């Protein structure tokens, strides 16, 4: 990579490392070459042929995303030959795409639409192929809608599902005119091994893959006088929502988010961060109980390592892929579902509302949360605990629909009882955050002292490294935890299901020994979730991550067990961690699922 290659692009001299592509070289000198199948998170496919450029002396055009630079190349990105070919390629794509733009959820956010607006101006197009193909829409899943009529076969979704997640729920089938992105045996998405993570949705350039939307149902609830609508907001929403509303990447918009939700008409604006803190208490205690049974009682039936359970994509993944490890998954529900169960019991009771008249809405960075809310076991309150799950994107759309100028909104604060949170809850939104939050509490429970990291920042579990390990030696413990004296607590953090699979295989094959594993299905954790604003990239996820840790640092309370509302709910309602009430409302079980 040390050798520099010199070339000219549109007569501008560029010097770039050997192995770079023409596209990278062009970007270096701010020449924009349009792309479609290219995505920086994925391997190069070179199949859409939109990014073609001309090389002097060469008859055929070159795909700039796939072609490495060579010394002395003279590249033209905007010659007559290039423009004509590019226009035709885009016209071809449009001819196989249901250009239903005015009715499309992706209207204004579609990459094909954007390219068309630049290149297909006037003139006659090719014959419409969509009408000839008899497409059907797969909208059976509670999370993801697949509309093949809008698919332009760029295979970004296929590469996402394979490379990032190692699932391959989406794959290419058939050839020629019948070639399509398909699922196993072309079954609907809800029947195949799909974790609903929505990473494909994040990378689909058109409206072929979208989340199932529920904002119409939410509007109905908001406009119903008899309904009390509570809303909860996930940690990662507050560092990404701004992107979908014209604000810079990584801007923290917590206060404006609360304002906007009030303006939309939600009766109670509460915070998933509250139940994130609660999750730490329950899950942290569960971990300590498991350690106690393993180390002190020498109980052979106790399952370690324990894994987190807050990522519904991960939960469904392990149900499919490693069902023998389901007893290792923490029985603690995710913060969303703990919130839902408490909203229609504890909270409804507090504010004097019948649970039957309460509509519980969550705003999540996630598409799998829609599926999670639909699970039959998520009805602890006697009702559906969470009625509707909105993605960050759907909320942004609702804010636009309501005519709210988001940027200029004043900051506001969450309602109390289930609105207070610690910094430990905020970092749930980033990979490693649950681990850090759990350690902040568990270490203190056992030793009576704060975790031995400067500013409570447990740096070894932070970052974007695919799989991270951190070991903490537990010393000078309180008397009741004496059996843990000197024990080295071994932890592991992984994000993205490809990495999750690697960790689980290592555990299964006895190649890795851990006590506690945090896994998030999405790259970067929830901040890179399938319900977050589009586009996504490593740089964007990094900015969101920085915002999350910034928010943590600014919080007056940094540890879950110090959240006063959490203490209050234990005093007045739950009584004790892992107690009877917790068991009823805050814990769950898992289901083995097919591997195909």
């Amino acid at each position: 990579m040390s050798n520099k290659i010199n070339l000219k692009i549109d007569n501008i001299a560029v010097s770039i490392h050997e192995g770079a592509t023409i596209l990278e070289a062009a970007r270096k000198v701010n020449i924009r070459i349009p792309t479609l199948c290219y995505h920086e998170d994925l391997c190069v496919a070179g199949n859409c042929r939109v990014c073609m450029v001309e090389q002097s002396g060469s008859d055929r055009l070159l795909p700039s995303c796939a072609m490495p630079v060579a010394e002395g190349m003279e590249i033209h990105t905007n010659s007559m030959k290039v423009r004509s070919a590019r226009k035709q390629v885009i016209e071809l794509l449009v001819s196989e795409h249901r250009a239903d733009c005015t009715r499309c959820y992706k209207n204004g956010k579609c990459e094909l639409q954007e390219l068309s607006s630049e290149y297909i101006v006037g003139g006659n197009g090719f014959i419409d192929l969509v009408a000839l193909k008899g497409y059907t829409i797969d909208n059976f899943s509670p999370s993801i809608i697949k509309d093949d009529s809008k698919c332009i076969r760029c295979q970004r979704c296929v590469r996402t599902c394979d490379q990032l997640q190692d699932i391959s729920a989406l794959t290419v089938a058939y050839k020629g005119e019948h070639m399509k992105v398909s699922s196993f045996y072309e079954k609907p998405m809800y029947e195949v091994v799909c974790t609903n993570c929505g990473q494909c949705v994040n990378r689909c350039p058109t409206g072929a893959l979208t989340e199932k939307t529920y904002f119409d149902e939410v509007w109905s609830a908001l406009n119903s006088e008899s309904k009390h609508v509570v809303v909860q907001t996930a940690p990662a929403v507050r560092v990404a929502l701004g992107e979908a509303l014209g604000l810079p990447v990584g801007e923290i918009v917590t206060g404006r988010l609360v304002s906007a939700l009030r303006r939309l008409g939600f009766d109670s604006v509460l915070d998933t961060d509250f139940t994130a803190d609660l999750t730490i208490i329950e899950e942290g205690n569960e971990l300590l109980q498991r350690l106690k049974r393993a180390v002190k009682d020498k109980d052979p039936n106790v399952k370690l390592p324990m894994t987190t359970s807050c990522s519904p994509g991960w939960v469904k993944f392990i149900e499919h892929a490693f069902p023998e490890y389901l007893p290792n998954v923490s029985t603690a529900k995710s913060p969303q579902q703990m919130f839902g169960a408490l909203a229609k019991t504890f909270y409804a009771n507090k504010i004097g509302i019948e649970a039957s008249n309460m509509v519980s809405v969550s705003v999540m960075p996630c598409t799998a949360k829609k599926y999670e809310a639909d699970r039959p076991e998520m009805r602890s309150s006697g009702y559906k605990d969470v009625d509707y799950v909105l993605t960050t994107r759907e909320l942004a759309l609702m804010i636009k629909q309501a005519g709210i100028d988001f940027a200029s909104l004043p900051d506001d604060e969450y309602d109390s009882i289930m609105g207070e949170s610690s910094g430990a809850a905020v970092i749930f939104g980033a990979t490693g955050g649950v681990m850090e939050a759990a350690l902040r509490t568990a270490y203190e429970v056992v030793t009576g002292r704060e975790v031995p990291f400067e500013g409570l920042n447990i740096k070894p579990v932070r970052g974007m490294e695919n799989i991270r390990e951190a070991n903490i030696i537990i010393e000078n413990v309180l008397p009741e935890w004496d059996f843990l004296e000197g024990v080295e607590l071994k932890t592991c953090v992984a994000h993205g299901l490809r990495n999750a699979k690697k960790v689980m295989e290592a555990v299964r094959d006895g190649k890795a020994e851990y006590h506690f594993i945090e896994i998030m299905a999405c790259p970067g954790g929830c901040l890179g979730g399938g319900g977050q604003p589009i586009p996504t990239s490593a740089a964007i996820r990094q900015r969101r991550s920085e915002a999350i840790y910034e928010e943590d640092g600014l919080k007056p309370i940094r540890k879950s067990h110090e959240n006063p509302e959490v203490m209050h709910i234990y005093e007045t309602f739950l009584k004790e961690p892992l107690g009877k009430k917790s068991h009823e409302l805050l814990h769950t079980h898992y289901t083995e699922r097919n591997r195909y």
Partner: protein
Amino acid sequence: MKKKNLQRLDLIFKNEHDTELILRKTFARPNDDIINDLISSGLKGRGGAGFPTGLKWKLAAEAEEKDKYVICNADEGEPGTFKDREILSSVPHKVLAGMAVCGHIIGAKKGFIYLRSEYTFLKLPLLKTIEDFHLLLDQLEIDFRVEIFMGSGAYICGEESALFESMEGKRGEPRNKPPFPTDKGYRNRPTVINNVETLAHTYSILKYGADKFKDLGVQDSRGSKVFSVSGDTPTPGIYELEFGMSLQKFVDDFGDGDSKAVQVGGASGFCVPRKRFEKTVIGYQGKLRGTSLPTGGSMMIFNSSRSMYNVLHNYLDFFVEESCGQCTPCRVGTQQLLLGIQAVKKGEQPSLYLNKLLELAEAMRITAKCGLGQSVANSFSSIVENFKEEMIY
């Protein structure tokens, strides 16, 4: 065949049972010597793309990697081409010898014959030949083994990088190039992939020498070529002919006296109308337009009873089905060309729409990912331009 005009050859199909002799002689020579012979013979790939064979071997020999492979491309799927079948039926040992010599030169111990699934009937006899050949290699103390890999029926898998993907158990889809096979081929290792006929020709060169091979043919097209002759001809079949003949001569020999066009190189080749028979020379330098070369050896003769619209429709049906579907120009372009000529024929589109289709074909030629999409323009443009009235009325 009693006619006399064309220079008939019998180099490839002549079987003198001299494999052991040739191989002993060859393995005793320095590698550079053999490669230089191949390069100076002027032998170019006989599968269609016409890449210089000696250079290909040289590049693979220079690649620094422990594992290398030799692959014989026997996925003969081009419509109107059936010469590889005959070569593998009657002189398979020549192909195997070519593979072994190639393996010896580049440092490969493993060779594969990627056999078209429709040629399953060839598998058993080939396996027998391979078994005998392995015994011979053992005698010669040459560490090289050949396996047969059966294709599954996709035309695109004749494209070398799609063939590798297919062998690796993946979808048969062409890869981005570079890297080229001599650098990263099968299993991302340096690979020489040659057409059946090319390998058989290397045997002739090893046997008769580069000079004798070079004496045949003209200019850039040296040696002989095996042609698959079909269509409106009283004498369909397989013929080894010297390069450099005019199409007029060919038609005089093989036509039925009423030939109006010859499709040279199969569905992905060019259609030459009668008025250009005299000027068209068959060979690499006889390219008619573009850079796709009609070297696969398919010669389909059409007489005046044939509708060129139907001929083109048939080719496009084939491409619409056999495109891998990966890249936009090929997947969508082939469908648009087919629907387009149908619409013009039915009067649903004006005849001017043909011009848009010709532009599309040209765009496909310069933007498609592999030879399939790039070469659709060959037949499309040459038929539409030369037989426009048949497309419209």
